[in-house]
């Protein structure tokens, strides 16, 4: 009940968060990973005597490489991003980095990816196709899930509110990523898109569970013959009270595994875990503090 009563404060809070996310996306944009943009990425770790960043930059320039970006990683490592360098220059790159004809004696190459422009274009297209398909199917699922609800709020309004919650859950991690990209060099890659799509699936089910309960309680109230419009607020409040325990418990369990993955897991899935983590928090928040209150506000507003 308390959430419904203070819904206006929650709206303001959500608006601030959303504004910050949208600001980040519009002004900082995303850094595309090599899988989307095409290009090469090399991660090396020096065995000992790790050179300064400026020295590494100088060595690469001297060897004729241009348009590269170097980022230190860990204590001894660097991640180097370049354009498409083709198959011959990988060894040249290692030689330039190590200033040696036998690079393996100075450093360990941990990872090398080189993605041609065609593949990059194709991966971008696939990302768009899968995002669109997931959205369409989830919309179909939402309308199917609410097919029985009618009074006193029209079925499509549940759908619209669920979708608003969904947009919120996508914007928050996306916005965070814009900031991470700006300040920590985080990149938007296929895994990021995967995380967003997974959040879509998760978020919509979290919202549906609350709406499900509203539906059940509405039916009960209808059977008891007290389905005045004024009761709607109360029924939504009651439904929330009945479901937030489960919602929080579930999210907390998912939070635990994702946090473990973020802290202890492989570097490759670090940002992936973080995106999911933020998405799960946003999804839980929106289904409790945003979706149901919005339903109440809408119903009140349309009665006026």
């Amino acid at each position, binding site marked *: 009940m308390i959430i419904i009563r203070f819904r206006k404060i929650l709206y303001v809070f959500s608006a601030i968060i959303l504004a910050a996310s949208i600001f980040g996306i519009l002004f900082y944009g995303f850094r595309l990973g090599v899988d989307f943009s095409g290009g090469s990425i090399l991660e090396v770790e020096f065995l000992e005597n790790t050179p300064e960043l400026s020295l590494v930059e100088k060595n690469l320039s001297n060897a004729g490489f241009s348009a590269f970006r170097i980022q230190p990683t860990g204590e001894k490592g660097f991640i180097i991003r370049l354009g498409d360098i083709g198959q011959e220059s990988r060894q040249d790159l290692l030689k330039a980095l190590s200033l040696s004809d036998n690079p393996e004696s100075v450093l360990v190459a941990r990872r*090398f990816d080189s993605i041609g422009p065609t593949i990059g274009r194709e991966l971008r297209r*696939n990302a768009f196709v899968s995002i669109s398909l997931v959205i369409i199917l989830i919309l179909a699922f939402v309308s199917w899930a609410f097919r029985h609800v009618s009074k006193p709020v029209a079925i499509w309004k549940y759908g619209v509110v669920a979708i608003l919650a969904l947009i919120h859950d996508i914007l928050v991690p996306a916005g965070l990523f814009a900031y991470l990209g700006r300040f920590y060099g985080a990149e938007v890659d296929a895994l990021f898109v995967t995380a967003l799509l997974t959040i879509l699936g998760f978020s919509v089910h979290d919202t549906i569970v609350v709406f499900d309960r509203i539906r059940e309680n509405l039916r009960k109230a209808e059977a008891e013959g007290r389905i005045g419009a004024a009761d709607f607020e109360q029924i939504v409040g009651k439904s929330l009270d009945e479901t937030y325990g489960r919602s929080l418990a579930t999210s907390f369990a*998912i939070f635990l595994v994702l946090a473990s*993955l973020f802290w202890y*897991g*492989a570097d490759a899935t670090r940002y992936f875990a973080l995106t999911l983590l933020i998405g799960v928090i946003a999804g839980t928040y929106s289904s409790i503090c945003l979706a149901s209150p919005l339903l109440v506000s809408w119903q009140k507003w349309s009665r006026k």
Partner: protein
Amino acid sequence: MLKIRLIAIFLLLAGVFLAYFAGANFFRPDWFLGNIGYRLGLDLRGGAHLVYEADVSAINSSEVSESMEGLRDVIERRVNAFGVAEPVVQVQKSGDSNRLIVELAGIFDTDQAIRMIGQTPYLEFKTERSESEREEILKKQEAGEVVLKDPYFIPTELTGRFLKKSILDFDSNTGFPNVLLEFNEEGSKLFGQITKGNVGKVVAIYLDGLPISVPVVQSEITSGNAQITGQFTPQEARDLVRRLNSGALPVPIKLMAQQSVGASLGAESLERGVIAGIYGILAVALFLILRYRLPGLIAVFGLVFYVILVLSVFKVLPVTLTAAGIAGFLLSVGMAVDANILIFERLREEVRWGANLGKAVDTGFQRAWPSIRDSNISTLITSSILYWFGTSIIRGFALTLGVGVLASIFSALVVTKVFVLASGLRHNRFSLTLYGVKREA
């Protein structure tokens, strides 16, 4: 009651068996089923993933798939010569583009692999090494010395370069396919010399570094015609002829993308993924017990059963495990808990509303089912789309997530339910406390 307890015992035994199956490769590789391990992706074991595009513009559209198969066979043979464990060579069609995916576990230096994959077929004729030389080389090799010489054969000057053309022929008596070689003038001379000096001996014919035929020379051949009688199927013989005639790969290829992960990074990713998994699952188990008491403990059993079940499915299918796949599996562990939580919250509610504990168990499971179904449908939608449209990294995630979600429904609805019923607690204050329910007056 007896029936449900028998089922519980059966499930326990099944769980023990699956647990053995899931772990056997670690502690007893020599025992029953211990030889089946997990399949690790290149990002966890280290290795190279190469994507080639084939230029099929010069080929009839009806023959494209056939020549792609031919290309795959050729490259598979070359890759096999690297001595890589379980190399993967796949043909993939993406829109109008014909691709070849090559995965080489344990190889980081892709430069050499790329050179060997892209080379033209190399036909060689080799003659027998003399017995004394052979003994000498073998002795050195046995002593552990590295001798980069084939102890049995000596390469000659005659190679595919001197080939004029190659023809497919079928033996009129046996019906077996033969490959006829016709050399140019210089080749004929060389071949004449080789056959002359080796009557009664073996001349080995090598393709891409591997012997394909080791015929014994009957007499000197000066006509410049040779015949390879290998153990060919007609299709293999046809492919061989085509390749020898084209002098190169059946289709020209171009490298589009490569991804390689060093063995050290792979091992580190694997170790950290496993550690993250263990901590994550322990944390969830602790949380379940603290919050739901006895049912929580049962849910932990359900969870353990679930983890064992999913790991076994990973082995049986088999699912290629990647870093993203581990993430998907862990996420599904979190989601698997959801079904249990839905059930227990319902159960508590029913008891709070005055239901008898025994009946509450039934209705709790019954009423939770629509929510469990609905909440998992959206995740299954997402994971199937990711599987269809994703790259191999994404597929690893989608597959483990999807398998995990399906297994979680089973473990919550069957395993947890059976154990809750089998615990057979009566409706009294003690069991209510165990269930973590405070009955409202």
